[in-house]
C-alpha cells in the first residue's frame, strides 16, 4: 500500500466517526455527504474508479438529499400534528 491509500483510509475513518458524533440529524445528513466524498476518494486511490463514481453520485448527492427531504417531511408533519 502506498501513502495516499493509508491517508484515504484515515480520512474515511475520521469522516465516519464525525457522522456518528454529529448528533443533529440535519447536520448528520451533510456530514454523511462529506463521508461519501471521502469514501469515493478512497475507492479512487485503491484503483476502483467505477466504484468511486457510483459512491460519489449516491453517497454525496442522492443519499444526503433524500435524508434531508425525509427530515423536512417529518418536521412538517410535527408542525401540522
Amino acid at each position: 500500500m502506498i501513502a495516499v491509500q493509508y491517508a484515504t483510509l484515515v480520512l474515511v475513518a475520521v469522516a465516519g466517526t464525525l457522522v456518528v458524533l454529529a448528533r443533529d440529524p440535519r447536520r448528520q445528513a451533510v456530514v454523511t455527504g462529506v463521508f461519501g466524498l471521502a469514501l469515493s476518494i478512497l475507492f479512487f486511490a485503491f484503483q476502483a474508479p467505477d466504484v468511486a463514481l457510483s459512491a460519489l453520485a449516491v453517497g454525496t448527492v442522492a443519499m444526503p438529499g433524500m435524508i434531508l427531504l425525509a427530515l423536512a417531511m417529518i418536521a412538517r408533519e410535527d408542525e401540522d400534528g
Partner: protein
Amino acid sequence: MSERTRLAVFLAGAVPLAALLTLALIGLPGSDLPLGDLAGTIAAHAVPERKGTNTVIDVAFDYRALDTLGEEFMVFVAAIGTAVLLRATRADDERSNVEERRELHGDDASELMRWAGGALAPVTVLVGLYVVSHGQLTPGGGFQGGVVLATAFLFVYLSGRRVASGRVNALSLTEAAEAAGAAGFALIGIGGLIFGAVLMENFVDLGSKGSVWSGGTIPLANVAVGIEVAGAFVVILTELLDQLVVGRGARR
C-alpha cells in the same frame, strides 16, 4: 424495555458481528497482491473479445449482464414503490394543488441559487451524457451517468425554474423514460436470444477498440440503463418534493 436490556440485546448482536467481521477482514488478500485467476482471465480476454477497454463494464454489461438486469429492475421497482406509497397518502384533490405549488416555487429561490443552479445544470447534463456514452471506454456507465443526469434535475429545481413547462407533463415524461429504459435493456437481452444463441448474447457489431462505437450491445445497454436510472431518481425526488410542497400549501 429498560436501558440495560437494550444494551444487552445490542451487545449480544454487535459483539459476534464485530468478531466475525474482524475475522473476515483478516482473511482478505492484500491490495498489492497479484490478480486472482478469474480477474486475470477477464483482464486478458475482455478487451480482445469485446473491444470495450473498460473491463468492469465488459463484465457488468456482457459476461454478467443478467446480474445487471436484476439490479436495474431493483431501481425500477424502488422508484415505483416510492411513487405508489407517496401518492396513496396524498388525497386526490391535492393533486391539482401540487401543480400550482410547483409553479409558485420559483419565487422561493434566492438570486445566488438561481445563478448557480442555472450554470451547473447544463454542465451536469453534459457530464452525465459523457459518463453514460463512454462507459465501455473509461470508468462510468449507465448507472453512474444516470444518477449524474438526475442531479441536473435537482439543480434546476433548486434554481427555482419550472420543471413542468407548457403542455408537457414532466413527471409523466420521466415515468415513461424510466419504463422505456428498463424495457430497453430487457429487449437488448432478448435480442441476444433472437439474433444470437443465448439471452444477453452480444449480437451487435463490436466495432474497433477505443472507439465510442465499440462493444456491440454494451453501449446500447448503458444508454438504456442511463435513461432508466435518471428517470427513476427524478421520479423518487419529485414524489418526495411534491409531498413537501403539498404540506407547505396546506399550512399557508
